[in-house]
Each structure stands twice: as C-alpha cells, then as structure tokens.
C-alpha cells in the first residue's frame, strides 16, 4: 500500500468521548481540552462532552474526517484510526506517502500552559545569559523615572507571550549579514527555549498530538526512522516540525504542510481530491499542488463573479 492515512483525531462519538475523558495527564488531548471540564464529576463531564460533540465537533470535524477516510479507502489507501506514534513508525515501513491528521500544539502560550505562579518566572530567568531571557526580565521589571510615562512593566503572562514575537537585539547569529526567518519559526524556536528554561512552570509547546498524546519533533523524526517518502503534515502550521524532519532525514524525507491553520472541512476536501489524483497515477506532491492551485483559482473566480454566480 503506497499511501497511509493516519487519523490521530476522533472521527466518531465513541472515539470523541473516550479521548475527551482521558484521565492520564501525559495522554490527555490538548485539542479536545477546550471542550472538557476536568474538574466536573464523571457524569457531568460526559454530558458536557456529548453537548460539544452534538453542537460542534460532529459537523465541523468528525464528518469531514470520516468522509476523507471513506474516500481514502475507496482510492486504495491504508487508513488507520486512533493513530499513535507507533503507527507512524509502522506506516514508514510500508508506505511511500504518510498523511498525518493530528493537532499541532504550536508555540502560542495558552492560559492552560501556565502551570505555576507567574511570580517565579523572573527569578528563574534572572541568571540566564541570553538576549531572550534578558528581554523578558527587563519587561517584567518596574519602570523607573520618566520611563514610567511611556511604558509599564508587563505581567509574566504578557511578557512571555510578547517575547515570542519581539524584536530582540543580539539573538541572531553573529557574522551573518541578513538573517531571514518565518515568524512562525521564530516563535517556535523561542518557545523551545522558554520550555527548557521554565520546565515545570510551562506546559511545553511545539508538539504533535496523536491518539497517544503529544510528541516532540525529535520523537516524530525518530519514529519515521529511515523513511524516504513524503510526509503530509496536513492541517497545521507545522513548518517547524517539517523542517526538523527534513533535516533529520538528511533531505531523504520530504514534508508538506499548510502555512495557515485550516478548517477541517477545507483540508479534508483538499486531501480527498489529492488522494483521488494520486490514485489515478499522479505524483503525490504534483497532485497536492494542483489541487491547491485549482481551489485558489475557484475561490478567486467566485469572488470576482460574486457568491451567487456559477
């Protein structure tokens, strides 16, 4: 089987409820956490999740993914539901293309990521000799004199969030005339540093969520081993993960992903069309690019003609 479709997100109600109620912290779903109240009783938690399934998840996520899985099976792909990291490893042994449907917990600092009291952050970063650490410590310090009129000390949460995008002198490699980096890559790189400095205070970011929990880029690359095909990371802005896999494999493994966060209904339709073309003999990357181009052309054509014209 040349193409494996790995579904790391729930596609039916039973999967959604089981995954949503996961009690083991290391396996708890970050993607479903926004619909789960861990403090509620078991019965209330179940009701709560059922409500979200009915109102949002079923139509917005599960149905598009189920249609994609059906289409993939019809085109002769190998479809794995409840896909875990072990399934990535298994797919690497039997496939030329691996399509991963998972959730990318990116570099953004969510409220749930702050595990400890913010007051300790300045103390923990104080001794670290790095421009990013110094920038955060400076932005936390109360301003003195006239400085108070123009800026105020940030809260720990705001300082850490702002540090991901801030222009910080001295951070780029010396001896380089021009250093170009995607904003998403810069955020991810800085988030990795913050995670290592503030372990235990911050829940780490830059993780790929599959059925068995969140995985680092190193673990995903390790699971792929000597795989020499294409990994389609589909739904997320996983350029950081994609670049790592590419470099780790010495360029033998190609990755492809979307540059912006996608609606499941959009990426599922796009992937189904790609798989159909691939089943007809098109090279996977050519098929994916052609589908993307066609969809853009359709969208542009529609916006020129207006939403009601054919």
């Amino acid at each position, binding site marked *: 089987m040349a193409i494996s479709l790995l579904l790391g997100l729930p596609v039916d109600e039973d999967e959604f409820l089981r995954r949503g109620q996961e009690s083991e912290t290391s396996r708890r779903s970050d993607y479903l956490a926004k619909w789960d109240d861990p403090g509620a009783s078991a019965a209330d938690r179940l009701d709560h999740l059922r409500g979200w399934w009915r109102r949002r998840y079923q139509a917005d996520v599960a149905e598009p993914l189920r249609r994609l899985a059906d289409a993939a099976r019809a085109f002769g792909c190998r479809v794995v539901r409840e896909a875990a990291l072990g399934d990535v490893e298994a797919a690497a042994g039997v496939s030329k293309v691996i399509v991963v449907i998972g959730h*990318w917990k990116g570099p953004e600092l969510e409220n749930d990521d702050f595990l400890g009291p913010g007051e300790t952050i300045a103390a923990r970063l104080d001794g670290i000799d790095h421009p990013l650490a110094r920038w955060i410590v400076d932005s936390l310090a109360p301003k003195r004199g006239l400085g108070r009129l123009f800026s105020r000390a940030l809260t720990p949460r705001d300082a850490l969030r702002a540090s991901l995008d801030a222009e910080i002198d001295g951070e780029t490699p010396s001896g380089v005339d021009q250093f170009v980096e995607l904003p998403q890559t810069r955020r991810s790189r800085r988030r990795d540093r913050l995670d290592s400095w503030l372990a235990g205070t911050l829940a780490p970011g830059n993780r790929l969520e599959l059925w068995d929990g969140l995985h680092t880029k190193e673990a995903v690359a390790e699971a792929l081993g000597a795989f020499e095909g294409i990994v389609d990371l589909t739904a997320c802005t996983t350029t950081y993960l994609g670049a790592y896999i590419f470099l780790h494999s010495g360029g033998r493994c190609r990755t492809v992903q979307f540059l912006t*966060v996608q609606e499941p209904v959009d990426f599922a339709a796009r992937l189904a069309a790609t798989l159909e073309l691939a089943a007809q003999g098109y090279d996977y990357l050519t098929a994916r690019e052609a589908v993307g181009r066609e969809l853009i052309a359709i969208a542009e054509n529609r916006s020129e003609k207006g939403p009601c014209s054919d």
Partner: protein
Amino acid sequence: MFGLKGVVSDLNRDATKAGGGLSSKAVAALRIHRSRVGVLGVVLFAAVLAGVTIAAYLALRQVGRPSDIKIVAGGLGLSLGTALEMLRRIWKDWSQTGLLLILVEDARDDQIAGLLEKLSARL
C-alpha cells in the same frame, strides 16, 4: 461583521480549527478590538466637541437674526443626535470588551469555549 459580536463569532468559529488553542487568540483579538474601539471613540468625541464649539460660535455671531440661529441649531441637532448615539454604542462595545477581557485573561480554555459559544448566540 463589525463590533464585539463579530470578534466573538470569529473566535467561536475558529475553535474547531486543527491547531492552536483559544485563550491566546482570544486575549489578542479582544485587546486589539478594545484599542481600535477606544481610538474611534476618542476621534468621534473630538469631532462632536469641535462641532458643538463651531455651532456655538456661529450661533453667537448670528445673535439678533433668529432665522439663521434656527438653521445652525437644527443642523447641529441632527448631526449631534447621530454622533451621540454612535458614541453610546462605542462606549458600550468598549466596556463590554473590557469586561470580557477580565474574564478571558485568566480563564481555562474550556471556560472560554463555553463563554464564546453563549456570547456568540446572544450578543
């Protein structure tokens, strides 16, 4: 869709996107919205103030000519009424956004998701 309702609806719709959480996006979007609405309010308030000042000045110049004063007062009444209603709406939007920010800044993602869903339906 403009205003707080538009911001809340966008955030609520984004909740199912595969990637990212809710709170950081919600805090950033609400702060940007509050700041834009604040600037708009200040500009509109300055325009109202300038309008009233100019109208008062013109009225004072026309003392003794009641028909001209009537025109100035009538024009001012029409535009001032609309501007004050806009200011009231801006003030309401600004203060509701501020209140929502207080709640969202420290809430868990599941609490924010519930809040956004309810507000999206009822605002």
